[in-house]
Protein backbone atom coordinates (compact mmCIF):
# COMPACT_ATOMS: atom_id res chain seq x y z
CA UNK A 1 0.00 0.00 0.00
CA UNK A 2 2.07 2.88 -1.25
CA UNK A 3 0.84 6.45 -1.36
CA UNK A 4 -1.59 7.13 -4.12
CA UNK A 5 -0.03 9.90 -6.21
CA UNK A 6 -3.44 11.55 -6.49
CA UNK A 7 -3.97 11.55 -2.74
CA UNK A 8 -4.93 14.79 -1.01
CA UNK A 9 -1.79 14.42 1.05
CA UNK A 10 0.33 14.72 -2.08
CA UNK A 11 -1.74 17.53 -3.51
CA UNK A 12 -1.21 19.58 -0.34
CA UNK A 13 2.52 18.84 -0.31
CA UNK A 14 2.90 19.73 -3.99
CA UNK A 15 0.82 22.90 -3.75
CA UNK A 16 2.79 24.17 -0.77
CA UNK A 17 6.08 23.32 -2.42
CA UNK A 18 5.03 25.10 -5.60
CA UNK A 19 4.23 28.28 -3.72
CA UNK A 20 7.57 28.19 -1.90
CA UNK A 21 9.65 27.39 -4.99
CA UNK A 22 7.95 30.04 -7.10
CA UNK A 23 8.57 32.68 -4.46
CA UNK A 24 4.88 33.29 -3.76
CA UNK A 25 5.71 32.32 -0.19
CA UNK A 26 9.00 33.83 0.93
CA UNK A 27 11.35 32.87 3.73
CA UNK A 28 9.89 33.88 7.08
CA UNK A 29 6.32 34.11 5.85
CA UNK A 30 3.56 32.13 7.53
CA UNK A 31 2.04 29.05 5.94
CA UNK A 32 -1.75 28.68 6.14
CA UNK A 33 -2.88 27.18 9.43
CA UNK A 34 -3.75 23.51 9.86
CA UNK A 35 -7.38 24.51 10.18
CA UNK A 36 -7.38 26.61 7.00
CA UNK A 37 -5.68 23.86 5.02
CA UNK A 38 -7.99 21.12 6.25
CA UNK A 39 -11.01 23.23 5.28
CA UNK A 40 -9.59 24.25 1.94
CA UNK A 41 -8.71 20.68 0.90
CA UNK A 42 -11.54 19.02 2.85
CA UNK A 43 -9.21 16.63 4.61
CA UNK A 44 -8.66 15.69 8.23
CA UNK A 45 -6.29 17.64 10.42
CA UNK A 46 -4.05 14.58 10.67
CA UNK A 47 -3.57 14.46 6.89
CA UNK A 48 -2.68 18.15 6.93
CA UNK A 49 -0.30 17.53 9.79
CA UNK A 50 1.34 14.71 7.85
CA UNK A 51 1.76 16.92 4.79
CA UNK A 52 3.24 19.74 6.86
CA UNK A 53 5.56 17.35 8.63
CA UNK A 54 6.84 16.14 5.25
CA UNK A 55 7.77 19.74 4.42
CA UNK A 56 9.38 20.16 7.82
CA UNK A 57 11.45 17.04 7.09
CA UNK A 58 12.64 18.67 3.91
CA UNK A 59 13.55 21.85 5.81
CA UNK A 60 11.18 23.89 3.66
CA UNK A 61 9.14 25.05 6.62
CA UNK A 62 9.52 25.10 10.36
CA UNK A 63 7.08 25.31 13.22
CA UNK A 64 6.85 27.62 16.18
CA UNK A 65 4.79 26.10 18.95
CA UNK A 66 1.45 27.85 19.17
CA UNK A 67 2.15 30.16 16.25
CA UNK A 68 2.07 27.88 13.24
CA UNK A 69 4.31 27.06 10.32
CA UNK A 70 6.74 29.37 8.56
CA UNK A 71 8.84 29.17 5.41
CA UNK A 72 12.48 28.43 6.20
CA UNK A 73 15.48 30.35 5.02
CA UNK A 74 17.05 28.05 2.41
CA UNK A 75 20.08 26.32 3.89
CA UNK A 76 22.63 25.81 1.18
CA UNK A 77 25.12 24.30 3.54
CA UNK A 78 22.81 21.76 5.13
CA UNK A 79 22.20 18.44 3.44
CA UNK A 80 19.90 15.62 4.35
CA UNK A 81 21.72 12.35 3.88
CA UNK A 82 19.95 9.04 3.58
CA UNK A 83 22.32 6.25 4.42
CA UNK A 84 19.86 3.45 4.08
CA UNK A 85 17.09 4.56 1.83
CA UNK A 86 14.17 2.59 0.49
CA UNK A 87 15.72 2.45 -2.97
CA UNK A 88 18.79 0.52 -1.90
CA UNK A 89 18.22 -0.89 1.57
CA UNK A 90 21.20 -2.41 3.32
CA UNK A 91 20.87 -5.86 4.75
CA UNK A 92 23.09 -7.38 7.35
CA UNK A 93 24.48 -10.85 7.77
CA UNK A 94 25.90 -11.80 11.11
CA UNK A 95 29.50 -12.97 11.09
CA UNK A 96 30.00 -13.46 14.78
CA UNK A 97 29.32 -12.22 18.27
CA UNK A 98 31.63 -12.32 21.25
CA UNK A 99 32.08 -10.70 24.61
CA UNK A 100 35.21 -8.60 24.83
CA UNK A 101 36.89 -6.34 27.32
CA UNK A 102 35.48 -3.00 26.35
CA UNK A 103 38.42 -0.87 27.27
CA UNK A 104 40.90 -2.81 25.18
CA UNK A 105 38.63 -2.88 22.16
CA UNK A 106 37.62 0.72 22.32
CA UNK A 107 40.53 2.52 23.85
CA UNK A 108 40.94 5.97 22.30
CA UNK A 109 37.85 5.52 20.18
CA UNK A 110 34.92 6.39 22.36
CA UNK A 111 34.83 9.24 24.78
CA UNK A 112 31.85 7.73 26.56
CA UNK A 113 32.14 5.13 29.25
CA UNK A 114 31.14 1.83 27.75
CA UNK A 115 31.68 -0.23 30.89
CA UNK A 116 33.94 -3.21 31.48
CA UNK A 117 32.57 -5.61 28.98
CA UNK A 118 31.09 -5.18 25.55
CA UNK A 119 29.41 -7.34 22.99
CA UNK A 120 31.39 -7.30 19.79
CA UNK A 121 29.14 -7.91 16.83
CA UNK A 122 30.62 -8.42 13.39
CA UNK A 123 28.31 -8.11 10.43
CA UNK A 124 28.45 -7.95 6.68
CA UNK A 125 26.46 -5.30 4.88
CA UNK A 126 24.69 -6.27 1.70
CA UNK A 127 22.48 -4.65 -0.85
CA UNK A 128 19.21 -6.33 -1.66
CA UNK A 129 20.68 -8.25 -4.58
CA UNK A 130 23.22 -9.87 -2.23
CA UNK A 131 26.01 -7.63 -3.43
CA UNK A 132 28.56 -7.27 -0.64
CA UNK A 133 29.06 -3.63 0.36
CA UNK A 134 31.05 -3.74 3.53
CA UNK A 135 31.38 -5.00 7.07
CA UNK A 136 31.01 -3.53 10.48
CA UNK A 137 32.30 -4.20 13.97
CA UNK A 138 29.85 -2.98 16.53
CA UNK A 139 30.24 -2.71 20.27
CA UNK A 140 27.34 -2.66 22.69
CA UNK A 141 27.86 -2.24 26.44
CA UNK A 142 27.35 -5.64 27.99
CA UNK A 143 25.60 -5.86 31.28
CA UNK A 144 24.49 -9.18 32.70
CA UNK A 145 21.35 -7.64 34.11
CA UNK A 146 20.11 -6.12 30.89
CA UNK A 147 18.88 -8.55 28.29
CA UNK A 148 20.27 -8.10 24.81
CA UNK A 149 17.41 -8.14 22.39
CA UNK A 150 17.56 -10.41 19.44
CA UNK A 151 17.06 -7.48 17.14
CA UNK A 152 20.25 -5.87 18.39
CA UNK A 153 22.16 -7.93 15.93
CA UNK A 154 19.56 -9.38 13.67
CA UNK A 155 17.38 -6.64 12.31
CA UNK A 156 19.44 -3.56 12.68
CA UNK A 157 21.59 -2.13 10.00
CA UNK A 158 21.85 1.58 10.53
CA UNK A 159 18.51 1.73 12.21
CA UNK A 160 18.98 1.02 15.82
CA UNK A 161 15.41 1.41 16.70
CA UNK A 162 15.95 3.50 19.75
CA UNK A 163 14.18 6.74 19.13
CA UNK A 164 15.37 10.09 20.42
CA UNK A 165 18.94 8.95 20.54
CA UNK A 166 21.52 11.07 18.94
CA UNK A 167 23.86 9.55 16.47
CA UNK A 168 27.07 10.93 15.21
CA UNK A 169 28.81 9.49 12.24
CA UNK A 170 32.34 10.26 11.27
CA UNK A 171 33.66 9.16 7.93
CA UNK A 172 36.99 9.14 6.21
CA UNK A 173 38.74 7.51 3.26
CA UNK A 174 41.02 4.57 3.78
CA UNK A 175 43.08 2.12 1.70
CA UNK A 176 42.15 -1.51 2.33
CA UNK A 177 44.76 -3.37 4.37
CA UNK A 178 45.23 -7.15 4.34
CA UNK A 179 42.41 -7.86 6.75
CA UNK A 180 39.88 -5.57 5.08
CA UNK A 181 40.68 -6.76 1.57
CA UNK A 182 40.28 -10.35 2.71
CA UNK A 183 36.95 -9.65 4.38
CA UNK A 184 35.58 -7.79 1.39
CA UNK A 185 37.18 -9.87 -1.38
CA UNK A 186 39.01 -6.92 -2.84
CA UNK A 187 42.62 -5.91 -3.45
CA UNK A 188 44.97 -4.42 -0.90
CA UNK A 189 44.82 -0.65 -1.35
CA UNK A 190 41.22 -0.58 -2.59
CA UNK A 191 39.26 2.54 -1.66
CA UNK A 192 37.31 2.09 1.55
CA UNK A 193 34.93 4.53 3.16
CA UNK A 194 35.30 4.06 6.87
CA UNK A 195 32.47 5.22 9.07
CA UNK A 196 32.47 5.43 12.83
CA UNK A 197 29.06 5.61 14.37
CA UNK A 198 28.41 6.47 17.98
CA UNK A 199 24.91 6.29 19.36
CA UNK A 200 24.10 7.85 22.71
CA UNK A 201 20.82 8.13 24.51
CA UNK A 202 19.30 11.25 26.03
CA UNK A 203 21.26 10.84 29.23
CA UNK A 204 24.49 10.65 27.21
CA UNK A 205 24.93 6.98 27.94
CA UNK A 206 26.51 5.10 25.12
CA UNK A 207 24.21 2.67 23.31
CA UNK A 208 26.67 1.46 20.74
CA UNK A 209 29.79 2.19 18.78
CA UNK A 210 30.47 0.81 15.34
CA UNK A 211 33.30 0.86 12.83
CA UNK A 212 32.05 0.28 9.31
CA UNK A 213 34.29 -0.46 6.38
CA UNK A 214 32.44 0.07 3.12
CA UNK A 215 33.72 -0.59 -0.39
CA UNK A 216 34.41 2.83 -1.92
CA UNK A 217 33.25 1.92 -5.40
CA UNK A 218 29.95 0.46 -4.19
CA UNK A 219 29.00 2.55 -1.23
CA UNK A 220 28.34 6.18 -2.01
CA UNK A 221 26.80 8.69 0.36
CA UNK A 222 24.08 10.74 -1.26
CA UNK A 223 22.43 13.81 0.14
CA UNK A 224 20.21 16.63 -0.94
Amino acid at each position, binding site marked *: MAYNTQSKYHIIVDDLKASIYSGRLNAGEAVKSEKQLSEEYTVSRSTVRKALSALVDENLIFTIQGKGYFVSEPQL*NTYTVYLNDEMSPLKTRLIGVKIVRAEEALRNKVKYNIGNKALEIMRYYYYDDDELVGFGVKYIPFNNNVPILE*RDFQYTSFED*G*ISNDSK*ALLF*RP*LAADNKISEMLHTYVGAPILKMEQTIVDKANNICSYEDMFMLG*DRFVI*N*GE
Partner: protein
Amino acid sequence: MKICSCWATGLLLMVNELNTRLYSSLTGDIIKKISSGKLLPGDKLPSENMLMESYGLSKTTVSRCLQTLSNEGYIVNIPRVGNYVKKSKSTQYELVFDGESNVSLLADSMRGGDFSCTHDPASGLYKVAYNKIYYSEKKVICFCDYLLTLDTDDGIDPSIIEMPINNLLKKYHNLHSIKKTVIIQAIVCPPDLADIMGIPDTSIIMSLERNYYSLDGTTIGFCKSFFRDQSFDFHLYSKKSFIR
Protein backbone atom coordinates in the same frame (compact mmCIF):
# COMPACT_ATOMS: atom_id res chain seq x y z
CA MET B 1 16.47 -21.33 51.47
CA LYS B 2 19.06 -21.52 48.72
CA ILE B 3 17.01 -23.99 46.70
CA CYS B 4 14.00 -21.82 47.11
CA SER B 5 15.72 -18.72 45.76
CA CYS B 6 17.10 -20.69 42.83
CA TRP B 7 13.66 -21.95 42.10
CA ALA B 8 12.17 -18.49 42.26
CA THR B 9 14.86 -17.10 39.99
CA GLY B 10 14.25 -19.94 37.59
CA LEU B 11 10.56 -19.29 37.52
CA LEU B 12 11.12 -15.59 37.06
CA LEU B 13 13.47 -16.27 34.18
CA MET B 14 10.91 -18.53 32.57
CA VAL B 15 8.18 -15.97 32.90
CA ASN B 16 10.48 -13.28 31.54
CA GLU B 17 11.48 -15.45 28.65
CA LEU B 18 7.89 -16.27 27.83
CA ASN B 19 6.98 -12.60 27.92
CA THR B 20 9.91 -11.73 25.70
CA ARG B 21 8.94 -14.39 23.24
CA LEU B 22 5.35 -13.25 23.08
CA TYR B 23 6.45 -9.70 22.56
CA SER B 24 9.06 -10.47 20.01
CA SER B 25 6.77 -12.59 17.84
CA LEU B 26 4.64 -9.55 17.08
CA THR B 27 7.22 -6.79 17.55
CA GLY B 28 9.89 -8.68 15.67
CA ASP B 29 7.50 -9.54 12.89
CA ILE B 30 6.49 -5.94 12.35
CA ILE B 31 10.07 -4.70 12.54
CA LYS B 32 10.98 -7.35 9.99
CA LYS B 33 8.17 -6.23 7.70
CA ILE B 34 9.26 -2.61 8.00
CA SER B 35 12.95 -3.40 7.42
CA SER B 36 12.18 -5.58 4.42
CA GLY B 37 9.88 -3.00 2.88
CA LYS B 38 6.71 -5.08 3.11
CA LEU B 39 5.35 -2.27 5.22
CA LEU B 40 6.14 1.16 3.84
CA PRO B 41 6.27 4.51 5.64
CA GLY B 42 2.72 5.81 5.91
CA ASP B 43 1.15 2.36 5.76
CA LYS B 44 -1.52 1.61 8.30
CA LEU B 45 -1.05 -1.38 10.58
CA PRO B 46 -3.92 -3.83 11.10
CA SER B 47 -6.19 -2.85 13.99
CA GLU B 48 -5.45 -4.11 17.51
CA ASN B 49 -8.32 -6.56 17.26
CA MET B 50 -7.00 -7.99 14.02
CA LEU B 51 -3.51 -8.33 15.49
CA MET B 52 -4.96 -10.06 18.58
CA GLU B 53 -6.63 -12.60 16.36
CA SER B 54 -3.85 -13.26 13.87
CA TYR B 55 -1.13 -13.60 16.54
CA GLY B 56 -3.34 -15.16 19.20
CA LEU B 57 -2.33 -12.56 21.77
CA SER B 58 -4.24 -10.76 24.47
CA LYS B 59 -5.21 -7.12 24.10
CA THR B 60 -2.69 -6.14 26.79
CA THR B 61 0.18 -7.84 25.01
CA VAL B 62 -0.76 -6.33 21.66
CA SER B 63 -0.95 -2.83 23.12
CA ARG B 64 2.37 -3.30 24.86
CA CYS B 65 3.94 -4.45 21.61
CA LEU B 66 2.54 -1.46 19.76
CA GLN B 67 3.71 0.80 22.58
CA THR B 68 7.21 -0.65 22.24
CA LEU B 69 7.18 -0.13 18.49
CA SER B 70 6.01 3.41 18.97
CA ASN B 71 8.62 4.08 21.69
CA GLU B 72 11.31 2.77 19.42
CA GLY B 73 10.24 5.01 16.59
CA TYR B 74 8.95 2.45 14.15
CA ILE B 75 5.31 3.49 14.20
CA VAL B 76 3.18 6.48 15.07
CA ASN B 77 -0.06 6.13 16.96
CA ILE B 78 -2.84 8.49 16.07
CA PRO B 79 -5.55 8.10 18.74
CA ARG B 80 -8.83 6.68 17.46
CA VAL B 81 -7.38 6.38 13.96
CA GLY B 82 -4.72 3.71 14.15
CA ASN B 83 -1.04 2.97 13.90
CA TYR B 84 1.08 4.04 10.98
CA VAL B 85 4.57 3.14 9.90
CA LYS B 86 6.77 6.11 10.56
CA LYS B 87 9.06 7.58 7.98
CA SER B 88 12.34 6.40 9.34
CA LYS B 89 14.19 9.28 10.92
CA SER B 90 17.00 7.11 12.10
CA THR B 91 18.43 6.74 8.62
CA GLN B 92 18.29 10.45 7.94
CA TYR B 93 21.38 12.34 8.82
CA GLU B 94 22.25 15.94 8.57
CA LEU B 95 25.45 17.01 6.94
CA VAL B 96 26.44 20.58 7.48
CA PHE B 97 29.07 21.34 4.93
CA ASP B 98 29.94 24.88 4.15
CA GLY B 99 32.80 24.01 1.87
CA GLU B 100 35.10 26.96 2.03
CA SER B 101 34.58 27.93 5.64
CA ASN B 102 34.99 24.34 6.84
CA VAL B 103 38.21 23.93 4.92
CA SER B 104 39.53 27.37 5.73
CA LEU B 105 39.64 26.45 9.40
CA LEU B 106 42.27 23.85 8.64
CA ALA B 107 44.09 25.57 5.84
CA ASP B 108 46.69 28.26 6.36
CA SER B 109 46.53 29.48 2.77
CA MET B 110 44.46 29.24 -0.38
CA ARG B 111 45.36 29.77 -3.99
CA GLY B 112 42.74 30.27 -6.68
CA GLY B 113 43.55 29.62 -10.30
CA ASP B 114 42.56 28.71 -13.85
CA PHE B 115 39.86 31.35 -13.90
CA SER B 116 37.85 31.45 -17.10
CA CYS B 117 34.63 33.21 -17.93
CA THR B 118 32.50 32.96 -21.04
CA HIS B 119 29.45 35.04 -21.79
CA ASP B 120 26.55 33.78 -23.83
CA PRO B 121 24.85 36.90 -25.30
CA ALA B 122 21.71 34.97 -26.24
CA SER B 123 20.84 33.88 -22.70
CA GLY B 124 22.78 36.63 -20.98
CA LEU B 125 24.41 34.01 -18.75
CA TYR B 126 28.03 33.83 -17.68
CA LYS B 127 29.79 30.51 -17.36
CA VAL B 128 32.54 30.71 -14.81
CA ALA B 129 35.17 28.08 -14.10
CA TYR B 130 38.00 28.13 -11.59
CA ASN B 131 39.69 26.05 -8.97
CA LYS B 132 40.99 26.53 -5.46
CA ILE B 133 43.83 24.80 -3.71
CA TYR B 134 44.01 24.83 0.08
CA TYR B 135 47.31 24.38 1.85
CA SER B 136 48.27 23.53 5.35
CA GLU B 137 51.94 23.66 6.27
CA LYS B 138 52.77 23.77 2.54
CA LYS B 139 50.92 20.53 1.88
CA VAL B 140 47.82 20.51 -0.33
CA ILE B 141 44.93 19.36 1.83
CA CYS B 142 42.05 20.11 -0.52
CA PHE B 143 41.48 20.77 -4.20
CA CYS B 144 38.19 22.24 -5.45
CA ASP B 145 37.00 22.49 -9.02
CA TYR B 146 34.16 24.92 -9.78
CA LEU B 147 31.82 25.48 -12.70
CA LEU B 148 28.98 27.94 -12.26
CA THR B 149 26.35 29.60 -14.40
CA LEU B 150 25.67 33.11 -13.17
CA ASP B 151 22.96 35.49 -14.27
CA THR B 152 24.05 39.12 -14.07
CA ASP B 153 24.18 42.33 -16.07
CA ASP B 154 27.28 43.65 -14.34
CA GLY B 155 29.89 41.29 -15.71
CA ILE B 156 32.03 38.93 -13.67
CA ASP B 157 35.20 39.89 -11.91
CA PRO B 158 37.90 37.25 -11.18
CA SER B 159 37.74 38.32 -7.52
CA ILE B 160 34.63 36.15 -7.14
CA ILE B 161 37.08 33.30 -6.52
CA GLU B 162 37.45 34.73 -3.06
CA MET B 163 33.72 34.41 -2.40
CA PRO B 164 32.35 31.22 -0.85
CA ILE B 165 30.15 29.36 -3.32
CA ASN B 166 27.06 29.77 -1.14
CA ASN B 167 27.42 33.54 -1.18
CA LEU B 168 27.83 33.47 -4.93
CA LEU B 169 24.66 31.47 -5.39
CA LYS B 170 22.83 33.75 -2.99
CA LYS B 171 23.91 36.78 -4.94
CA TYR B 172 22.96 35.52 -8.39
CA HIS B 173 20.07 33.10 -7.81
CA ASN B 174 16.77 32.69 -5.96
CA LEU B 175 17.80 30.22 -3.30
CA HIS B 176 14.42 28.52 -2.96
CA SER B 177 14.57 27.61 -6.61
CA ILE B 178 17.90 25.79 -6.27
CA LYS B 179 18.02 22.08 -5.81
CA LYS B 180 21.25 20.68 -4.53
CA THR B 181 22.79 17.27 -4.18
CA VAL B 182 25.92 16.00 -2.57
CA ILE B 183 27.79 12.81 -3.41
CA ILE B 184 30.51 11.59 -1.08
CA GLN B 185 32.84 8.81 -2.02
CA ALA B 186 36.21 7.31 -1.18
CA ILE B 187 38.15 7.12 -4.44
CA VAL B 188 41.57 6.31 -5.83
CA CYS B 189 43.24 9.63 -6.53
CA PRO B 190 43.32 10.43 -10.28
CA PRO B 191 46.94 10.84 -11.51
CA ASP B 192 46.72 14.54 -12.42
CA LEU B 193 45.27 15.34 -9.02
CA ALA B 194 47.89 13.20 -7.30
CA ASP B 195 50.48 15.43 -9.01
CA ILE B 196 48.85 18.58 -7.67
CA MET B 197 48.50 17.13 -4.18
CA GLY B 198 51.97 15.63 -4.23
CA ILE B 199 50.79 12.17 -3.20
CA PRO B 200 51.23 8.73 -4.83
CA ASP B 201 48.80 7.76 -7.63
CA THR B 202 47.38 4.94 -5.58
CA SER B 203 46.36 7.13 -2.65
CA ILE B 204 42.80 6.95 -1.43
CA ILE B 205 41.14 10.34 -1.06
CA MET B 206 37.70 11.65 -0.25
CA SER B 207 35.65 13.12 -3.03
CA LEU B 208 32.76 15.42 -2.21
CA GLU B 209 30.75 16.62 -5.16
CA ARG B 210 28.12 19.31 -4.81
CA ASN B 211 25.73 19.87 -7.69
CA TYR B 212 23.26 22.70 -8.03
CA TYR B 213 20.19 22.59 -10.26
CA SER B 214 17.27 24.83 -10.97
CA LEU B 215 13.84 23.34 -10.39
CA ASP B 216 13.39 22.39 -14.03
CA GLY B 217 16.55 20.33 -13.79
CA THR B 218 19.01 22.54 -15.66
CA THR B 219 22.46 22.57 -14.15
CA ILE B 220 23.46 25.73 -12.35
CA GLY B 221 26.87 24.48 -11.43
CA PHE B 222 29.00 22.16 -9.41
CA CYS B 223 31.89 22.09 -7.02
CA LYS B 224 34.03 19.00 -6.88
CA SER B 225 36.21 18.90 -3.79
CA PHE B 226 38.91 16.38 -3.07
CA PHE B 227 40.35 15.94 0.38
CA ARG B 228 43.63 14.43 1.22
CA ASP B 229 43.44 11.28 3.29
CA GLN B 230 42.79 12.00 6.99
CA SER B 231 43.11 15.74 6.53
CA PHE B 232 39.47 16.40 7.16
CA ASP B 233 36.83 14.75 9.32
CA PHE B 234 33.30 14.66 8.02
CA HIS B 235 30.52 14.40 10.53
CA LEU B 236 26.92 13.45 10.06
CA TYR B 237 24.37 13.91 12.78
CA SER B 238 21.03 12.22 13.14
CA LYS B 239 18.22 14.46 12.14
CA LYS B 240 15.86 15.68 14.79
CA SER B 241 12.24 15.78 13.90
CA PHE B 242 10.40 18.84 15.07
CA ILE B 243 6.89 17.54 15.14
CA ARG B 244 5.36 14.15 15.57
